[in-house]
């Protein structure tokens, strides 16, 4: 019990005094996950939208594959990326293993299906709702897509936020491909795992609070978005 109290108190001070390690690790986490978010969104938002409005032969298969990819265990993603990026792997020449870039690659693979899937569902719903009107007004393909993207903007942002939430809290894959190297690839989740293992609860708890705060912020944003959706503000 004393350990926990002492840990909490120390964690509190680490945060209040903006401890150098804590700040560095937090910033790296944000850098990695935000980069992954940008890349994944660039792929997943257009792809999910396209999947929702475009009828083609293997659409059902594509959706099934997407859902299956969403269930990929991060550790396995880590293993695969590791094999691809390792010296003897096909992309070994780039020397990306144990760099933040490798972690970004792994996170992109983990969150792209999630963002695409949420986007697909929301846009499919919107398209079903709008379909007859947009056809009746003889909109061009471009006008349809612009209308759906604009009126679905909150859903798209929600999908992106969900992806970010998953990325920032993920540990299995980035541990494998990043290696949790101090001052290089150590991020919130891997640092917590390490410090807990070492018994340094102060730093682990401090990082934990930061992580919780980030996750909470993301959820509050998602919630706020759905409220503005219902009330039609913004």
């Amino acid at each position, binding site marked *: 019990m004393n350990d926990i109290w002492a840990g909490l108190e120390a964690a509190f001070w680490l945060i209040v005094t903006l401890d150098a390690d804590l700040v560095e690790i937090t910033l790296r986490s944000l850098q990695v996950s935000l980069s992954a978010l940008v890349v994944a969104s660039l792929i997943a938002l257009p792809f999910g939208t396209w999947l929702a409005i475009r009828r083609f032969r293997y659409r059902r298969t594509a959706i099934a594959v997407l859902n299956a990819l969403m269930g990929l265990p991060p550790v396995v993603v880590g293993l695969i990326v590791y094999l691809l990026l390792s010296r003897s792997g096909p992309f070994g020449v780039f020397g990306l293993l144990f760099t933040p870039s490798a972690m970004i690659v792994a996170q992109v693979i983990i969150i792209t299906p999630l963002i695409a899937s949420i986007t697909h569902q929301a846009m499919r719903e919107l398209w079903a709702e709008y379909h007859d009107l947009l056809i*009746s007004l003889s909109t061009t393909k471009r006008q349809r897509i612009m209308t759906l993207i604009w009126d679905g903007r909150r859903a798209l942002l929600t999908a992106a936020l969900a992806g970010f939430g998953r990325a920032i809290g993920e540990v299995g894959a980035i541990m494998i491909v990043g290696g949790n190297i101090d001052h290089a690839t150590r991020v919130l989740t891997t640092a917590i795992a390490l410090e807990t293992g070492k018994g340094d609860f102060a730093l682990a708890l401090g990082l934990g609070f930061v992580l919780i705060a980030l996750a909470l912020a993301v959820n509050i944003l998602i919630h706020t978005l759905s409220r503005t959706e219902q009330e039609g503000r913004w």
Partner: protein
Amino acid sequence: MSLTLSQAVVKRRGKRILGPVDLHLSTAEITIVLGPNGAGKTTLLRVLHGVERLSSGELALSKPDAQARQEQAYVFQSPIMLRRTVRANLAYPLELLGTARPIIKQKVEHWAERIGLADALERHAPRLSGGEKQKLALARALIRSPDVLFLDEPCANLDGRSTREIETLLKDAQLRGTQIVMTTHDLGQARRMASEVVFLLYGKVHERADAKAFFAKPDTQEAQAFLKGDIIE
């Protein structure tokens, strides 16, 4: 604009839900499509508007297809609201045409006034009441001053006052030169509005007549039974 269906058939999952229909619409001011549930009224309207594909037969218009569609408007049975403000909903069909902003603004405000939503321009359209949505959908359809306006049960689930307001708007549009084709379940409304009647049964045009003659005494037994309120299956 004249619309002509020849041997038009619509099939769904192998089942024929409309046709074969031969129908020529041109001069009538207000054509009311009547018939029991499932007779094919909605399908017929959608076919005429070109949003429902024919399985066989054809639809001929007196204008090129693309132009014709721009000059038609359709009010769906359950109004489709864009997830935007009332103002943005009204502006949308004009924005698609690239109309100049000041003209859009002026027309939007004019129509909001006409449907009693002048004070609600900034409200979120999906949160309007059923009657307000229906009126908004109608105004959004009329804002392009269409040649032809299709309406699918525009007053279903509306109270007397909203129904009267909508009928007034429709009569007015018709006087300004819009040809109206609508379905209704409300025989009172059909009597008040129709200049001609198309009576559908089992996906076919069972009877077509001038409104006065039809309501005085329809030619077919089925239409007589329908007007009496008997259940026809």
